[in-house]
């Protein structure tokens, strides 16, 4: 829970800081992007320290809730205790499957094969093009909030927060494909 809070806070506050700094400076640059990420990191540390794990609280708050039973009930058999030990096996199995799918999806999200740019899922083709356009738009330092880069004469109305975050990463010289992989795997 603490890590989840910290990571979410880092991404959210980096984006918000980047947005404000970009609006104040009429566009993002390497310095403002780095500042935004540092602000996000500072808030993430605060969130990490200010959050407590509910599981730990329950454990310490209710230590005497277990009702005392007779001797045979309180002393489990080895088989029973082994089964109890692996009671979360389904959770870990699901987590492993999820990890496999996440790695498969995001390590091949967008990659270079010889002279070709490739994506794994054809369904991603249109979406990814738009996201790359938005990331590049933010990273190119256009005044915030920008016009729609693919629809002339209109303001950008797409919820482009995560693209702004990738734009910040691009500005601090994180490779675009690497940045997409990080964000995808973390998300």
């Amino acid at each position, binding site marked *: 829970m603490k890590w989840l809070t910290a990571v979410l806070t880092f991404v959210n506050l980096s984006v918000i800081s980047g947005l404000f700094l970009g609006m104040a400076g009429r566009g993002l640059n390497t310095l403002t992007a780095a500042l935004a990420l540092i602000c996000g990191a500072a808030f993430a540390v*605060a*969130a*990490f*320290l*200010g*959050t*407590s794990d509910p599981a730990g609280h329950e454990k310490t708050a209710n230590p005497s809730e277990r009702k005392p039973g007779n001797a045979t009930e309180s002393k489990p058999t*080895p*088989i029973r205790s*082994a*089964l109890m*030990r*692996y009671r979360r*096996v389904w959770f870990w199995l699901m987590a492993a499957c999820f990890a*496999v799918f996440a*790695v*498969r999806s*995001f*390590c*091949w999200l967008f*990659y*270079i*094969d*010889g*002279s070709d740019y490739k994506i794994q899922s054809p369904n991603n083709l249109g979406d990814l093009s738009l996201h790359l356009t938005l990331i590049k738009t933010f990273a190119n330092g256009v005044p915030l909030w920008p016009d729609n880069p693919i629809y002339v004469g209109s303001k950008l109305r797409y919820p482009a927060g995560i693209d702004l975050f990738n734009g910040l990463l691009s500005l601090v010289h994180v*490779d675009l494909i*690497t940045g997409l*992989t*990080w964000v995808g*795997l973390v998300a």
Partner: protein
Amino acid sequence: MNPQPPVTRMRMAARTSSADKSAPAESSPTVVGLRRYLGQWQDALAGTDWVPWAILGLTIFLRFLLLGMKPPHFDEGINGWFVDQVVKNGFYRYDPTNYHGPLHFYVLLLFECLFGRNLWALRLPVVLVSIAGVWMMFKFEPLVGRNVTRIAALAMAISPGFVFYGRYAIHEVWLQLFSTMFILGLLGLWKFGRLNYLWYAGMGLAGMILTKETYAIHVACAILAIPALAVSYALSRVPDAKPAKQTWSWIDLAMVLGVGTAAIVFFYSGTFFNWDGLKGLYLAFKAWTETGAAGHGHEKAWDYWFKMMGPSWETGGENFTAYELPMLAGLILCLFCQKFKNLSLRYLAIYGVGSLVAYSYVKYKTPWCIISFGWPFLFVLGGWVLLVRPKNLRKVHVAIGVLLCLSLVRSIWLNYFRCSSPTEPYAYVQTYNDIFKLSKPLLTLAKRDPAYYHLTGHLIRSSIYPLPWTLGDFDRVGYYEGGNMPANVDGDFLLVQQDKIKDVESKLKGSYYTEMMTLRNYQDPSKIFFSAKVFKEFFPGKAPDFVGTAQNQAPQNQPPQNQAPQTQAPPQTQAPH
């Protein structure tokens, strides 16, 4: 009736707190959390034993320092090329006739995805595994004692071999980690019978199977060491030798086997895309035994490992100070195996000697194997302090200290000053720094402007690795060997084998800067041709060294018209050890 606040015109003094003076003021959750963390850290630091952390710190420092200074090794280039193929195909196609287990490639893939396609990212996982290997040594403390463990861990942390190959993206470090884990599990099961040791043994075995075919040697030696230990025990009994009662159940065993099997099936089947890969689990042994017996150019004499550990003048005098004196001392101390009152140490000595005999018997020898079988001797070295009487203990400490100091000096000399020297036996088939003559200008240009990734290059020579990986992002590079030649020889850069230089020069039309380079030892030199138009900034004030005989130059930034650049074929040989 609603209670109302008191109404008064008099200024009232602030109410004093009823709480104790030491009661903390109300703060935000962040401040409270920070205080709690600081308090926890204070308590933890006060009770911390700093020696293991200092050893781990030294381990980390030696392995991370100037990690990219050594040019990529031939095998690193091949491993990197395989990762590129995994990206292209979506899975690793295990071929039992040529290559190693799949785990390393998938880990490299993940790190390249996370940190980019560069040498640092390629080596990072192995560095982490090497650090984990030293950390694993500390886990032997309940079995062999604190001092023995620390001496062994320190010896591993600073060993020239463990540092050198802990900075190489090859399989050997994985095998060392998993074999250590496996032996720790076996000894722990015998001594304590606890579940965690069952997991160590199971995951160690699964990890070895996922890494290299030579796991068979380690498993066989571990098994054969048991009856040998029984004989040793019969000859010289020690107290407290009875196996502990096992506290795990068959469900635990099933779980360990299930996880290990699932991992093996998952990776060997190419993440379920190549089920034929599973056959490689047994087909590998046929190819491997043939390679091991034949040598395939890597044949060495039986005493090769002794020359690696101890002083040797055979290779030009570079190893006269010896690479692994602590390991050699441990090996010598194995002669006094019967004197050990600790059965775990006896087992480690027997297992270590057995592995050394097996690795000496196999003709195919590459120097990095030394870390796979050499680590038990470091425990035996540490066990030296148990062999002597208290009055001699100081002398033994001094002797071990001297050995470790020599090892550290040798390690620094090898890893940071001589890491690609042809006269260092550990730098085996190591690429020379000459490779930077070609790669640095190219990568500098490409970093500045990705359009330079489309430069046309012809690499006309055999045994070109690691260049296919280094230049993997350059999409117009052709590799020509066995007499092949592009239709239009002119390009933005060329690398030409010595015996082809005249032929190529007679066909060139453009102007070029040239440099000679040698990729690695046992290989004839090559000539680099840099197109004067593209690379003139790297040769300031210098006229092109070579001007083609024809007057009409071919366009420089176009791929060959008649022959598309070839993709480098997979290598045919890779060290199986």
